[in-house]
């Protein structure tokens, strides 16, 4: 960090905004006491997934797109499956849907526990990392690691591997796990569910800056349950669309000095996906116990304070454990583990809820299944404009803070949305310019 200038005109450069997934930078310029510019730049080297998917087979996107992000590979696999199945006009049987949801709960558990305890909580204690936090509060960090481990175990049992699962295919799975394998998960999941209630109580005690943002929320919604792996795309201002329709109304812009594309809705302001959006749009479908825990932690039906996203994430962590217990208890092995997905010429889209927000994919196939075009909209490129506007608000409300405090708060404001820069392309470097 390199602070300079007086308080009306200051420049701060932080190299290494840590504890986000990927690399990028944040630039803030304040001139004559007025905020001039906020830019979130993403410098992940481009990897060209949309380009090299062209010419590959329609059965390949689940394995290939998983490699966009090691933190949410299941989200990539599930959106890819949904998109290809949509293009081929195939509907998977209910038992496949339930097993996908169970696998996805594993990813929510591991990713939310990772973010809450290892990436986000240290900020609220002024620690540089979870190891320092473990020095202050070993019980909390150990609890986080225990919960996270259960998420990984679930992904290993259902997916065959926690990072880049091998058991997922279009149409279903290569092998449906045995009843015994799934039953063995129930006790650990119940324990994790208990510990996520403690997590909600733990994060509710954090000290939150008093900021509310006027978000436009977008999330997948389902009438029967808290949407994860399927649903329609809804927004707080009345959008109700299929993934195909949503893909048609969203545009991605390429801004200079960034390898991520910014997503916007045609003719509308930026929007936010992720825990705050899901909670605002879908909390009525959470089980009563989860809603009670949220109320106890002080959450109303909508949470607009980005710093409190950690509480919402904890509520979702509890929900994911609870849902996984339910799905595991009801699980029956099935044969065949996958239905055929014969290729046909056409276009299809699929959207699912990655832990950090909605992830949409769209493919155009030729009759033999060869991919003619691919489009991938990761959550972070959709959230980027909202993150920038959060930071604008944080800076404007905090002009009297010291450079160090303001920088710390800006970094936290970025981490609030658990951005995955490997997804959006990659980021990690803050500079505040007050000159």
């Amino acid at each position, binding site marked *: 960090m390199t602070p300079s200038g007086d308080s009306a005109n200051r420049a701060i450069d932080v190299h*290494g*905004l*840590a*504890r*986000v*997934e*990927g*690399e990028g930078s944040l630039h803030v310029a304040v001139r004559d006491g007025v905020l001039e510019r906020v830019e979130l730049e993403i410098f*992940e*080297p*481009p*990897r*060209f*997934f*949309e*380009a*090299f998917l*062209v010419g*590959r*087979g329609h059965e*390949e996107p689940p*394995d*290939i797109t998983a*490699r*966009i*992000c*090691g*933190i949410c*590979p299941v989200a990539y696999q599930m959106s890819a499956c949904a998109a290809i199945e949509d293009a081929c006009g195939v509907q998977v049987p209910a038992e496949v849907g339930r097993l996908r949801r169970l696998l996805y709960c594993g990813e929510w558990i*591991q990713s939310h526990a*990772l973010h809450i305890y*290892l990436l986000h909580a240290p900020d609220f204690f002024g620690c*540089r*990392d*979870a*190891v*320092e936090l*473990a020095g202050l509060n070993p019980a909390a*960090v*150990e609890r986080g*690691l225990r919960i*996270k*481990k259960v998420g990984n175990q679930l992904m290993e049992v259902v997916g*065959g*591997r926690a*990072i*880049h699962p*091998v*058991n997922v295919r279009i149409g279903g799975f*290569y*092998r449906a796990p045995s009843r015994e394998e799934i039953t063995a998960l129930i006790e650990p999941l119940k324990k994790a569910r208990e510990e996520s209630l403690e997590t909600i109580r733990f994060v509710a005690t954090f000290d939150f800056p008093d900021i509310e943002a006027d978000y436009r929320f977008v999330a997948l919604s389902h009438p029967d349950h808290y949407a994860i792996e399927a649903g329609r795309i809804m927004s707080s201002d009345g959008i109700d669309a299929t993934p195909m329709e949503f893909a048609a109304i969203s545009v991605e*812009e*390429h*801004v*200079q*000095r960034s*390898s991520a*594309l910014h997503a916007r809705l045609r003719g509308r302001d930026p929007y936010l996906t992720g825990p705050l959006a899901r909670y605002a749009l879908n909390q009525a479908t959470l089980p009563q116990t989860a809603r009670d825990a949220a109320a106890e932690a002080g959450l109303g039906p909508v949470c607009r304070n980005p710093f409190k996203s950690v509480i919402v994430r904890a509520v979702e962590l509890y929900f994911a454990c609870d849902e996984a217990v339910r799905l595991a208890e009801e699980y029956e092995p099935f044969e065949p583990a996958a239905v055929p997905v014969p290729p046909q010429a056409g276009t299809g889209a699929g959207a699912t809820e990655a832990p950090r927000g909605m992830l949409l994919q769209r493919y155009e196939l030729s009759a033999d299944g060869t991919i003619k075009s691919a489009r991938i909209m990761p959550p972070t490129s959709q959230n980027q404009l909202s993150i920038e506007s959060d930071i604008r608000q944080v800076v404007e409300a905090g002009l009297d803070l010291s450079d160090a405090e303001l920088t710390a708060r800006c970094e936290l404001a970025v981490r609030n949305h658990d951005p995955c820069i*490997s997804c959006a392309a990659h980021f*990690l470097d803050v500079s505040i310019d007050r000159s």
Partner: protein
Amino acid sequence: MTMRPTLAVWKFASCDGCQLGILDLEDELLSLVGAVQIASFTEMTSAVIDGPYDVSLVEGSITTPDDADRILAVREASGLLVTIGACATAGGIQALRNYADVGEYTSTVYAHPEYITTLAESSPISSYVKVDFELRGCPINRYQIVEVVTALLAGRRPVIPGYSVCEECKMAGNLCVLVAHGTACLGPVTRAGCGALCPAVNRGCYGCFGPADTTNTASLARRLTELGTSERGISRLFRTFNSAATEFSKESLEHDA
């Protein structure tokens, strides 16, 4: 305490999955960070200690001119340099660009290709600097990290298998999917290390650990043809997660339609 060796983790073009493996060592994480001093690991900590570093773990491949410079600095600052994963050891999935025209790729993905600086090829770290040890896999097996760090700190050579997934598969007691079901499987030519995960779910190995120490890709390809795999299918099988590894690259070109 001051004698603890320093460990740094670096990221180049990658998905973060291999370094996430370190955070996934839930049971070992706190004792691992007790045994070494984490000197730089941005995904985990905002604390950074200046080099030199006793051990550097490098994830990701080199795809931009800046990264080509940065890896030289990392090498310079590191005692031992260990690459982790298919990206760092074989260019990763993004090496698929090596078989295409990157200019075209850039304009497929980006509206303003002029904002993007990128190299024509995605290359393993060893194309740029000396590498002391390589861990394979997309992603790596996280327990191999524990083994490598422990061994290097103890001054011994890490025990990491160079034999094929087939051997691991037999040891795991799996049914051979190639023999029993005629499923296309890269197990005979792929390096062990994952625990033969794919055959365990009735799926053929897709080669994410790259070539084993000794391979006969041509004979496997003949067998796959007999089983009815198309030329295009064979080419793709060898050209996905480790497409820039010499043996796989050669075989994929043999079947390039």
